């Protein structure tokens, strides 16, 4: 018998300002599941309900209708221990660097663990672990002042602040938005490590298709408050017709491969990871001497 998914969303709906002239339907009949240890990407346009959806994962929003079951616990029940839930599901908001309020890095990361009432020794170990996972040197950085950090470093501190809660599930809302390419790449690497080595279940919202292609095991596409499409990145990005219908961008690699195939070259259009795509392009280049000469 397969284990139960760690996140199960069934027919979830949510309406803001219900019963007022400003009523706004954010979610209608969304379904989604996440298996333990998976890395799931949620993509979709602004206003498609992504943020509302992920806020249901840790009880910031309670299901209005439909079901949200996290690690076997049904959140539509009246009595839910929000504190343990939020410890289990670490939710990292957009621009999390804004939420830093302590003067010293170590204190800010330790805020959550202290709130859990853990002893100092345990808190220190967790902070050390979290800082090292995100790539901050514990001894060097823990007593530094938060305001002197760069944007990318601040985001690492904020991520460490959530990791120090030792969540089973990590939910990230546009984790790399506004970061420079180097920090972006670094952060994506950390998320991969957390998923593959620390065995965290990861759910992330993104607008960047390269990121999705690189990280996700499966992808959900949201539109108008519901999940319209799901599958592996390969399935999603190679379904040209559906991509166009839902106006979803594709990774640059996929675009290049499709253009080559349109021009009559024989390439595998589902080779969307940078490495595979490069190989495909090399094959084309090797097969057409003129082209390679032309390129030179």
């Amino acid at each position, binding site marked *: 018998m397969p284990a139960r998914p760690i996140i199960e969303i069934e027919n979830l709906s949510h309406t803001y*300002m219900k019963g007022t002239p400003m009523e706004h339907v954010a979610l209608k009949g969304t379904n989604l599941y996440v298996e333990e240890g998976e890395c799931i990407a949620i993509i979709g346009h602004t206003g498609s309900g992504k943020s509302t959806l992920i*806020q249901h994962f840790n009880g910031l929003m309670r299901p209005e209708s439909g079901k949200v079951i996290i690690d076997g616990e049904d959140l539509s029940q009246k009595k839910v221990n929000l504190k343990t839930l939020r410890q289990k599901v670490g*939710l990292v908001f*957009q621009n999390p660097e804004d*939420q*830093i309020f302590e003067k010293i890095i170590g204190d800010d990361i330790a805020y959550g663990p202290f709130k859990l009432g853990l002893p100092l020794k345990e808190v220190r170990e967790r902070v050390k672990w979290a800082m090292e996972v995100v790539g901050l040197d514990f001894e060097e950085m823990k007593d530094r002042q938060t305001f002197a950090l760069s944007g990318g470093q601040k985001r690492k501190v904020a991520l460490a602040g959530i990791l120090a809660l030792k969540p089973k599930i990590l939910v990230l809302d546009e984790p790399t938005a506004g970061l420079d390419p180097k920090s972006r790449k670094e952060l994506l690497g950390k998320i991969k490590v957390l998923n593959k080595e620390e065995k965290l279940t990861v759910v992330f919202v993104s607008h960047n298709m390269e990121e999705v292609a690189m990280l996700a095991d499966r992808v959900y596409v949201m539109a108008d408050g519901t999940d319209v499409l799901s599958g592996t990145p390969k399935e999603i990005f190679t379904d040209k017709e559906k991509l166009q219908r839902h106006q979803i961008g594709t990774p640059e690699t996929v675009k290049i491969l499709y253009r080559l195939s349109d021009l009559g070259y024989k390439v595998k259009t589902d080779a969307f990871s940078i490495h595979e795509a490069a190989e495909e392009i090399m094959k084309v280049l090797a097969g057409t001497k003129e082209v390679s000469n032309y390129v030179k």
Partner: protein
Amino acid sequence: MSNEFEISRNITIGQYVPTGSFIHRLDPRIKLLSFVVLVLAIALNTSYLGNAVGLVLSLFLFWASKIPISYGLSGVKPAIPFIIILALLQLLFQGQLFSGGTVYVDYGFILITSESIRLVIVSAVRFIEIIFLSSVLTLSTSTTEMTHSIQSLLSPLKKIHFPVHEISLITTISIRFVPTFAIEMEKMMKAQASRGADFGTGGWWRIIQRTKEMFPIIIPLFNIALSRAEDLILAMESRCYTPGGDRTSYSVYKAAGKDYLILVVGLLFAVLLLFYPFPF
């Protein structure tokens, strides 16, 4: 429960209700000026008859604005317990100060006279009058109209180097940023709750601890506000904004005959409330 963090959607600042009534179409400057004068006059009147006049006037204006009465009542309803508590307190403790008139009760420190009863009733009625008047003003005037009127009404003060334009710009910036900050705050409360913040768990008497529990929200709020300010300063300076410069306005109001008529009527009512010796 799901509304625990919904701040931004529940803020009703500049809650304009367009009904296209006569009141809505008045020159906003006339509206604002008449409002200020009438509120001051009502605040200073202490007679029964004067406040009856004020009450009728404010209800009439509300009716004339064609705004659903529920909007006005929503201002009064939550205040009813406070009105009652205030009335009781005034009745029990203010008697000594208002010992004039007929004495009804004189028991220990409690002294209830016709004057102290007047105080109780007048305070309650005055409150209702001002609620309705300010509802008429804020529900029938958009925030843009409001800031333009403030600027226009204060403009004579430019002669004495009062920074009229600057004041109105400040007002605009304030109103503009309330919803922005509300959204930021909502996000912040959710983010902090996600990492285990909970507010109000310290012992009730531990003032310092209780205050510090609010830091995760309050400090980022001010930080966000002040860093937004830095961005805005830079943007304004790089577009060569100079305080005190001469400038023209995009929207120009022109008061017509009916506007002046309303102003005169408003002023007459105010003079009446302020100076007429009401018999009771």
